[in-house]
């Protein structure tokens, strides 16, 4: 296999607070290959967004990357000087945020914002950059781009603004796009369009995509692989069909059981009892153990490490037949 575009190893992110250090991300590892879409799913506060932000280097104090490594096509980027990291942002990693209504500066024409970004990263004349901006707007599906380029953000609808945001994220042909809940703020009908746009762009340009969302439907539709996060850790990761059809981790099982089907069997959706722990009160052992029905003694004392099970990888003691003493 060729080198993955993004490789995250044992990432740890901490936030210093008055009550001590809170660990938002605790040992997250995953890879994304060229042209692959990795869906990252989990409840609010599971650490999905923080993972995305640490990859692009936008974790603000009091947060900091406390451990682990992030590699972009072989280059270690988690410890780069700020100026070098800035040059990677927007050029090699594009990012799409949740709310297109607030992502654009309201005082500048969308074209000026695109041209500004293009010229920051590519050595193009004002004119060439503008032509490229028009092409980009056309590519993301904005009608009459040569006219719309001189519009202000407030003159665009939510879906159209998200298209502009996507155009901004891809304007320097990045190898990786991080999409942080790109459809959450949009109408359902627009969501599907945006999702297929991101998917198409990823396919056409061979871009790797990290798609952060809490919407399993979106993941099932777009992603090649999915990572299920819980309380700052990856509970399970694997090809999307396998994880959806045959989830291994009890939490993933609960999540998949909570997806409503159109088939219409009127049984109640499965509910996971309780709620995710706060960062300041993560239980000992497996962080999911208080909500986990099959949890046993070991789950309450020892953190589970990821185990390979076929195409999937799961962090759960249920799948570990080897006694803890001999497991390295």
């Amino acid at each position, binding site marked *: 296999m060729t080198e993955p575009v993004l490789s995250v190893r044992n990432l740890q992110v901490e936030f210093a607070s008055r009550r001590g250090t809170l660990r938002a991300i605790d040992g997250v590892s995953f890879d994304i290959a060229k042209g692959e879409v990795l869906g990252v799913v989990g409840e609010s506060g599971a650490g999905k967004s923080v993972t995305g932000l640490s990859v692009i280097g936008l974790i603000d104090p009091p947060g900091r990357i406390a451990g682990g490594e992030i590699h972009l096509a072989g280059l270690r980027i988690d410890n780069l000087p700020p100026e070098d990291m800035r040059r990677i*942002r927007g050029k090699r990693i594009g990012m799409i945020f949740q709310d297109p209504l607030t992502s654009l500066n309201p*005082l500048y024409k969308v074209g000026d914002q695109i041209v500004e970004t293009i010229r920051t990263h590519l050595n193009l004349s004002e004119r060439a950059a503008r032509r490229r901006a028009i092409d980009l707007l056309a590519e993301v599906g904005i009608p009459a781009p040569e006219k719309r380029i001189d519009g*202000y953000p*407030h*003159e665009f609808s939510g879906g159209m603004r998200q298209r502009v945001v996507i155009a901004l994220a891809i304007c320097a042909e990045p190898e990786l796009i991080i999409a942080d809940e790109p459809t959450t703020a949009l109408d359902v009908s627009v969501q599907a369009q945006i999702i297929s746009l991101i998917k198409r762009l990823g396919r056409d340009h061979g871009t790797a995509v990290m798609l952060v969302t809490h919407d399993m439907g979106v993941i099932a539709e777009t992603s090649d692989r999915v990572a299920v996060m819980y309380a700052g850790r990856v509970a399970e990761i694997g090809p999307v069909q396998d994880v959806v059809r045959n989830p291994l981790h009890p939490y993933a099982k609960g999540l998949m059981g909570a997806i409503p089907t159109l088939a219409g069997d009127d049984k109640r959706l499965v509910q996971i009892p309780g709620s995710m722990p706060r960062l300041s009160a993560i239980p000992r052992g497996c962080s999911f153990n208080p909500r986990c029905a099959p949890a046993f003694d070991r789950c309450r004392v020892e953190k589970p490490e990821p185990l390979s099970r076929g195409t999937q990888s799961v962090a759960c003691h249920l799948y570990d037949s080897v006694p803890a003493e001999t497991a390295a």
Partner: protein
Amino acid sequence: MLAFTLRRAIQAIGVMIAVGIISFSMFRFAGDPVNQMVGMDTSGAERAAIRKSLGLDDPVIVQFGRYVGNAAQFKFGVSYQFRLPVSNLLMERMPATLELAICATIFAMISGILMGVYSALRRDSWLSHIFQAVSLIGISLPTFLIGILMIYLFSVTLGWLPSFGRGDVVHIGWWTTGLLTLSGLKALIMPSITLGLFQMTLIMRLVRAEMLEVLRTDYIRFARARGLSTRAIHFGHALRNTLVPVITVAGLQFGSVIAFAIITETVFQWPGMGLLFVQAVQNVDIPIMAAYLMMVSLIFVTINLVVDILYTIVDPRLRSTVSRAH
């Protein structure tokens, strides 16, 4: 856009008429104007004649109409103490006040914005803490005290700057300016700082607060995710968004700068409208007081109008909502 401007202009005229009523009523409540004008030994018949010639026997509404009509043509009657038309006196004094107010505002804007931006971007540096302390002094110390302290330091002790007056002025038509001579410029320094200090601290605090607010917004975060340089983010994106409220405040404050000039002009014996007003108060020179009131309100109202229009230039969102609303 035009309809918006027109509507605002009509509102402004309404305000001016209200001010006209107040300033007109000053004549009626501050004693009989005829008594102010004539000596003790004037006969009743002569008084009646003056009264008639001044139109003081007409119904109030007619008198008010005449007053407003005259005021609209910048005719404010004759000063009791100088025996000269008030409008001439005001015109003669206005350049001094406007020059002072403009210099004070420019000083306040430039230093206020610079200090505000710096203390927002480098929140924990020692210089930011000094700026914060200075702004506290600027807000809490009264203007006249700062003026007097500066005179004591720079005029009396060090002898660097003149303590009063405008220095040499150059006449350009009816306008007089102190900006073209060295002594005129030197004379401007201390009054401008004194007058502008309060606005400066206000602008600095406003810019700092706004800038911190803007730096937290999503579009700044997205600008960072686009890899723009820190410079472009701070000065291209954040500062421009910060300036919208700053323009309002600075604009509206320009009116109070002119109004507050009364104190600064008194401290520095600056030959402007404020000093004229203070002398008028001491001598119960109603026509000057009334005219000054009208002038200052006119400036306030005009500035308000200009600020509203400027707003729409800086913020495109208002441009379209304004035109859509009509």
